[in-house]
C-alpha cells in the first residue's frame, strides 16, 4: 500500500507515528524496524519467559473460576436432568441451542482468516491467523458441548453417529441434527489439523530457544522433528495450502448446515430459505467481532502493536461492516418475505418478534447488531482501538440476541395459540452459558501462555517482503 506523508498523531503511544496512506488509511502491516531477530525474540519470549505474568494469573483465575462453575452446572445437569434449565413445551430449545449457534458462528472468523484470506493472498492475515485459528478451535469446543448437554439422555449421544450396531440401526439421515454432527466434527478436525500444521515451524523455534530440558523435551515432541530443511518447508507449504483448500468450503458449509436445523423445520421464523447465506454472513460477522475483542487487549498488554497494526484492525472492521450489512439485509428480507408470502403465520411471527413479549430482544438486536455497527463507516472508529472494541462487543451481544430471537421467540408462539408459552432461563442456563465463556478464556489464556500466538515463521516471511520493498 502506498504510503503518504500523514502519520497517526493521536491515540495510544504505540500507535503514534504509524504511517498512513495519502487517503489517510493505515498502511503498514508490520511495524517499522522489525527484523527476523526482533520477531522471533518478541514472540517466543512470551512463551518462554512470559513478561506480564501477574496480569495473566489474574485473568486465568477469573476464567478458571468460571470454568469450575461450568463443571458444577454440568454435573448437576447430568445428575438431575434437563429440567433444571428453563426449557419447556413449546420452547424445547433454549439457551443451549442459542449458545451453540453463537459459538459456532464465532469460530468462523478463524477459518475465514486463515484459509480464505490465505488463498486470496491477503498478506495481512499472517499476524492474526494463529490466534484466530486457536479461537476457532476453542469456540467450536464450547459450541460442541451444547448439543450434547442439551440431550435428554446425553450419555447416548453416540447414537447420532453412524456406527454398525447389533440392531442394524443407523441415524436418520434426513434429520439436520445428523448433518450437524458431520459438519461440526469435520470442522473441528480440519481446524485442529490446519492449526497444528501451521504451528510446527514455530514449535521448532521455541524448542530451539528453550532453556530448560523439560521445555526442550515438550516442545521438541510437539515439533515432530522439524528441522527447517527445504524439503520440510516444501512439504509443509503444500500441506498447508491443501488444508486451506479443504477448510475453505467448510467456512460456508458448517454454518449453512447449522442454519438448516432451523430452515428444515416448519416453525414460522425458522422455515426460511435465506438462512444459509445469512447465517454464514452472521458467523463471519460475529467471528471478526470476537477476534477484535480478543486482539485489541492482547496487542496492548503484550505490546504487539507492530505485528497487529492499525491496518489489521481497519481491515477487520471493514469485513465486519460488509458482513454486518449482509446480516441487516437478511433481517430486512425476513420481514419482507413475511409480508410478501401472504402467510398469516409468517406475518404474525414478524409482528410478534417486534411487538410481542420478546420485543425487547428484537429491538436490542437491531440496536446492537445493525445501528451501532454503522459507526464503522467512520475511519476514526475503525482506527481507534477502544471504539472498535466497543463496537465489536456490541456485535457479539447482538449476534447472541439474534439467535435468541430466532430460537426462543419463534418457538414461544407458533401455530396453535392455546399452547403459546413464555420461556424463562434459570440460573443454570446462565451458569452454563458463562461457564463456556470461562472454558473459552481458560483455553485461550493457556494458549497464549504456552504457544506462540503469532506465527513467527510467517511474520518472518513478511519481514523479508518488507525488506525487499524498503531495505
Amino acid at each position, binding site marked *: 500500500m502506498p504510503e503518504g506523508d500523514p502519520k497517526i498523531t493521536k491515540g495510544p503511544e504505540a500507535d503514534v507515528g504509524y504511517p498512513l496512506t495519502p487517503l489517510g488509511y493505515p498502511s503498514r502491516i508490520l511495524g517499522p524496524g522489525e527484523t527476523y531477530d526482533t520477531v522471533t525474540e518478541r514472540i517466543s519470549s512470551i512463551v518462554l519467559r512470559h513478561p506480564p505474568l501477574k496480569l495473566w494469573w489474574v485473568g486465568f483465575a477469573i476464567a478458571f473460576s468460571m470454568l469450575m462453575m461450568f463443571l458444577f452446572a454440568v454435573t448437576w445437569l447430568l445428575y438431575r436432568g434437563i429440567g433444571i434449565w428453563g426449557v419447556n413445551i*413449546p420452547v424445547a*430449545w433454549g439457551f443451549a441451542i442459542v449458545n451453540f449457534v453463537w459459538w459456532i458462528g464465532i469460530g468462523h472468523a478463524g477459518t475465514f482468516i486463515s484459509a480464505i484470506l490465505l488463498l486470496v493472498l491477503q498478506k495481512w492475515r499472517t499476524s492474526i491467523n494463529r490466534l484466530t485459528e486457536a479461537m476457532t478451535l476453542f469456540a467450536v469446543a464450547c459450541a460442541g458441548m451444547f448439543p450434547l448437554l442439551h440431550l435428554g439422555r446425553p450419555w447416548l449421544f453416540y447414537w447420532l453417529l453412524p456406527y454398525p450396531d447389533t440392531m442394524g440401526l443407523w441415524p436418520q439421515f434426513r*434429520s439436520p441434527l445428523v448433518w450437524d454432527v458431520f459438519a461440526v466434527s469435520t470442522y473441528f478436525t480440519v481446524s485442529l489439523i490446519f492449526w497444528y500444521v501451521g504451528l510446527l515451524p514455530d514449535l521448532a523455534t521455541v524448542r530451539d530457544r528453550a532453556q530448560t530440558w523439560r521445555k526442550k523435551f515438550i516442545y521438541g515432541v510437539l515439533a515432530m522433528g522439524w528441522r527447517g530443511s527445504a524439503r520440510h518447508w516444501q512439504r509443509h507449504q503444500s500441506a498447508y495450502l491443501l488444508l486451506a483448500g479443504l477448510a475453505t468450503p467448510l467456512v460456508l458449509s458448517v454454518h449453512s448446515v447449522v442454519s438448516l436445523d432451523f430452515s428444515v423445520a416448519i416453525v414460522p421464523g425458522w422455515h426460511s430459505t435465506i438462512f444459509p447465506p445469512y447465517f454464514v454472513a452472521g458467523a463471519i460477522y460475529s467471528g471478526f467481532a470476537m477476534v477484535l475483542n480478543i486482539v485489541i487487549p492482547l496487542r496492548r498488554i503484550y505490546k504487539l502493536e507492530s505485528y497487529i497494526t492499525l491496518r489489521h484492525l481497519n481491515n477487520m472492521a471493514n469485513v465486519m461492516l460488509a458482513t454486518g450489512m449482509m446480516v441487516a439485509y437478511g433481517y430486512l428480507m425476513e420481514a419482507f418475505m413475511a409480508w410478501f408470502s401472504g402467510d398469516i403465520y409468517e406475518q404474525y411471527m414478524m409482528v410478534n418478534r417486534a411487538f410481542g413479549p420478546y420485543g425487547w430482544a428484537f429491538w436490542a438486536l437491531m440496536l446492537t447488531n445493525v445501528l451501532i455497527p454503522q459507526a464503522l463507516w467512520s475511519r476514526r472508529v475503525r482506527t481507534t482501538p477502544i471504539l472498535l472494541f466497543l463496537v465489536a462487543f456490541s456485535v457479539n451481544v447482538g449476534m447472541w440476541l439474534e439467535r435468541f430471537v430466532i430460537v426462543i421467540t419463534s418457538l414461544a408462539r407458533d401455530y396453535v395459540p392455546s399452547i403459546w408459552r413464555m420461556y424463562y432461563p434459570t440460573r443454570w442456563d446462565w451458569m452454563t452459558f458463562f461457564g463456556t465463556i470461562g472454558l473459552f478464556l481458560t483455553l485461550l489464556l493457556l494458549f497464549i501462555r504456552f504457544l506462540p500466538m503469532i506465527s513467527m515463521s510467517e511474520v518472518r516471511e513478511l519481514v523479508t517482503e518488507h525488506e525487499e520493498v524498503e531495505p
Partner: protein
Amino acid sequence: MKTPAASAPLDLAAIRARLAGARGQEYWRSLDEVAQTKEFQEMLQREFPANASEWTDDVSRRNFLKLMGASLALAGVTSCTRQPIQKIVPYVQQPEEIVLGKPLFFATAMPFNGFATGLLVRSNEGHPTKIEGNPEHPASLGATSVFQQAAILNLYDPDRSQAVLEAGEVSTWGLFLGALNGGLEEQRAKRGAGLRILTETITSPTLAAQLQALLKKFPAAKWHQYQPVNRDNAHDGARMAFGEVVEAQHDFDKVKVILSLDSDFLFAHPEGLRYTRQFTNGRRVSHDRTEMNRLYQVESSPTITGSMADHRLPLNAGAVEGFARTLAQQLGGGAQAQAGGDVQARWISAVARDLQRNRGASIVIAGEQQPPVVHALAHQMNDQLGNVGKTVGYTASAEAQPVNQIQSLRELVREMDSGAVDMLVMLGGNPVYNAPADFQFAERLAKVKLRIHLSAYQDETSAYCHWHIAESNFLEAWSDVRAFDGTTSIIQPLIAPLYDTRTAHELIDVLMQQPGRSSYDIVRDYWLARKVWPDFEPSWRKALHDGLIAGSALPSRAVQLKMAGGLPPASAGPVGAQGERLEVCFRPDPAVWDGRFANNGWLQETSKPFSKITWDSAAQVSVPLAERLQLANGDVVQLRFRGRTLRMPVWITPGQAENSILLPLGYGRTRAGHVGNDTGFDTYLLRESEALWFAPGLEISKTGEQYKLASTQQSHNVQGRGLVRDGTLAQFRANPEFIHANEEAPKPNNTLYNPGEYKSPDYAWGMVIDLNTCIGCNACVVACQSENNIPVVGKSEVARGRDMLWIRIDQYFRGGAENPKVTNQPVPCMHCENAPCELVCPVEATLHDHEGLNLQVYNRCVGTRYCSNNCPYKVRRFNFFAYGYADGKAASLKPMRNPDVTVRWRGVMEKCTYCLQRISAARIESKKQGRRIRDGEVVTACAQACPAEAIIFGDTSDAGSRVAKLKAEPLNFGMLGELNTRPRTTYLAKLLNPNPDLEAQA
C-alpha cells in the same frame, strides 16, 4: 379404657401440628424427631411420592455434597438405568379365570355425592388399574366423569389413612371397641338420647336399613345428614310445588328447546353423564340430519353447560329468580316482561315464544344452587309447557331420607352446643372443614364427649376426634348404592382392603353391638332378607355381573302442582338485585369438587375449564369488574363478607356476570395429604348457612400482592387461524361445505415421496373429534392419564410449561369478553401421515408404521426435542425430569400402573399413541379368530370415557366404519391441513343453533 374426653382440645391441636409434618408409617416411630429435627422433615420431603411431589431445582447444601460425590463417579451413575432385582414367584396353582397378561373386568359402582355411577373396572393380575363406565348402567351409559376416572388414584393414595387412631396415635380396632362399648352402655341406659350419627347423603339400602335398626335400638338417638353440595334447594322446590319431595327426571333425547336456569346439568348433576349423552345426541348434525336442539343458559359464571349454549345470558345468581318469575308469567299468559332492562326483556320474550312453539318438547331446568322458588318455577313452567310426562317425569328421591341437610346440621350443632350430645359418630364427611362458617362446627364438636370419625383420610375432622377409623375405598369393600333414578347397584370390591380399614356397614354393626359380620355378609344378608328375588343366588350373581339390579329404578310418579295457576312466593330478603352491590357465589370446583378430591394429583393437575388453572383456586371476577377495580390475573384481593374475611387471588373470567364473584369450594385444605395441603384458598371460611350458594354484600379490595397461578393456556384467541371452525345451523343448511370456504389444504397424495403409502389390506387408524358435542369436561384427559401411566408433575412444573398430559382441551373464546362464545377442542396427537416430527429426529425414535400410527420409540429416544419443536400442534410431552420413576418411592402407587404401558424415564419424549396397547390387544384377538378387527372393537381411553361420544376412533380404510363415515361428513376438517401434514385426527366443526329472534337483535 382411656377417657378420651380427658384430652383437652389444646393437646389435640399440638398433636395435629406435629403430625402435619408426618406421613404414613413413619410418624409413630419417630414422633419426637418430627417435632425436633430438620433432617427428618427433609427426609419426608424427599420421600414424597412422585405423583405428589413437586420438583424444585434448588441446590441445597446437602444436594451439593451429594453432587460432588456424584461428580467423582459421573460416568458410572449415568450410563444406564438399572432395574431393581425382584424375585418372581409363579402361581403354584393358577386361579381360575386369571390369565397372566389378560385383564379382567368387574362391574361395580362408585358413590359420588351419594349417588351411583355404574362402572366396569379393569383388573390386571388382581389389582384394579382402570375405571370405565358401565354401558348397562343408566347413570353412566359407558361413560365416566373426571371424578370416576380419578377415583382409582384415591385407592392407591399413599396418604390414605391406614389404621385406627386414638387421639392421633395408632391404636387397634379392639381398643376402639372397648372404648365404644363403654359409651354405648351409657347410651343404652338413656335410650340413645346422647347418641348422634352424622352422615353424608345416603342412598345405600343396606346402610339405610342398618341405620333404621340402630335408631330402633336407640329410639332417642338421631341421624343427621350433611354434605356441602346437597340437593336441599331442589327438594324444597319440589315441596313448594308439589307438597312432597320428588326428583325431576329429565329426558333430553327428543327435546328441541332447553332453558337452563343456572344449572350445570351436563356436569354437576348426578345424572350429568346421561344428560350429556342425550343432550349431545340432539346436537349431532350430518349431511342427512340438519336438526339441532337449542340451549338457553342463564347463569352467573361460565360452566361446562354454559359453554354449549346457543344463547347465554350472564346474570347475577340472585337475578335468576326474577328472570324465571317474569318468564313464568309470560308463559302463563301474564303481563309482558318488566324486570331487568332491555336485554333481559328481549331475551324473556324470545325464550317464551320459543318454548311455546315447542310445547311438550322442551325442558326448563333449575340449578341446585338456585333457591327453592326457582325450582318451583321450573316445575311450573314445565307443567305449563306440557312437558310433564314427555320430557320431564317425577319419581321419589333415591336418597334414603331426603331431609333438609342444613337444618339437620343446624339442629346437631345446636345440640352439641347445649351439651346434649355425648357421642357423635361421623360416617365419612369432613364437617370441620366444610360446614358453614357460622356453625362453628369445630368448637362445638369439642363439647361432645366421644367423637368418632370414619374417614379415608386423617383429615381436618379426624384431628378433632378421639377416634379415627380408616375407611375402606369403594374398590376394596362391599356395599350397595342407588343412582339418581333409583337404579341399585351392588358395590363389589376388586381387591382385598390394602390396609386395616372398615366400612360404614361394619361400624354401624359395631354400634349395634353385633360385631363380626363382614361387609359382604351385611350386604348379602340385607338383600336376602329383602326377598326381592325368588331365586336368590342366580339373581345376586346376575346383579353383580351386570353391575345393577334390573328393574330397581324408581317408578315414575304422578304429581299435582299445588300452586295451581299462581306463582310461588318470592324468596325472602334481597337475594341480589342487579346493581353495584357485589354478589358472592359458591360452587364446587370442577376438579376437586367440594374438597374431597383435594389429595388427588390427577385432578389437581386437570386444568379447570375457562381459567385453565391447575393446583389452585382463584376468585373469578368479570371483565368489567376487573377493569373497574384495576385487577389483573393473580392479584391478591381481600374479600369481606358479613364480617368474615379471606385473601385470595383473582382470575378474570370472560362470561362471568358483571357484579358476581365466584368462589370455588374445595381448596385451602390443611390436612388433605401431601398433594392437597396448601393448595388454593379455603372459601368455606366465607360460606354461611344463610348464604350457602350466593348472596349480595361482598366487599373486595386490592392488597397489592401477587400470587402465582399455574394456568396451562394463556391465549384463548384463535388469531383468525382456522384451527377451530364454527358456524350456525342456518349456514350449514344453506351450504353444507361452508366451513371449507377459505381452505388451502393441498390435495392428498400430492407428494413426490410415497404416494398411496397406506395400502388397503392394512388398517388405517384415525380419529374424529366432534367439536359440536364436546362439552370440555376433562374426562378424556384424566382417562388418558390413568390408561397411559402419565405422571403428575406439580404446580411449579406446570407453571414452567411442562405438563405431561397427552390430550389437552383447548378453549377458544369468540365475541365480546363479557360473554364470549366458547369452543372446546380436545387436542391429542394428530398422527399425521406426513408427520413433521418424524423427519427431524436424528435417531429415528419417532416414525410411523404401515397402519399410519405415529410411534414414539422410548428406548431409542435421546431427547433432542426437535420433534416437539417441529410439531405444529405441540402435542408432544417431554420428561424433563424422571417424573414417572420418582413414583418408585411410593410403593402403593405401583400396582395402579397399567402394565401394558411403559413408564417413561427421564429425558424421553412421549405423546398420545392412540392407545396402541388396546389396538394390539384387539389385533391379537382378531388374529386368533382369523378375522379383521371389527369397527368399535378398539376404543381409546379418551373415547371410552367421553360422555358425549365426541371422540370416535377406528379404521378409516373401512368405508363402513363410524370414523370413516364421519370423516366423509361435510363438517369434517383437519387442523392446520394447509401444512400438508395430513392429520389422522380430524374435527367436526362446531355449530350453534341461535334463535333468529335474538340473533337479529344482537
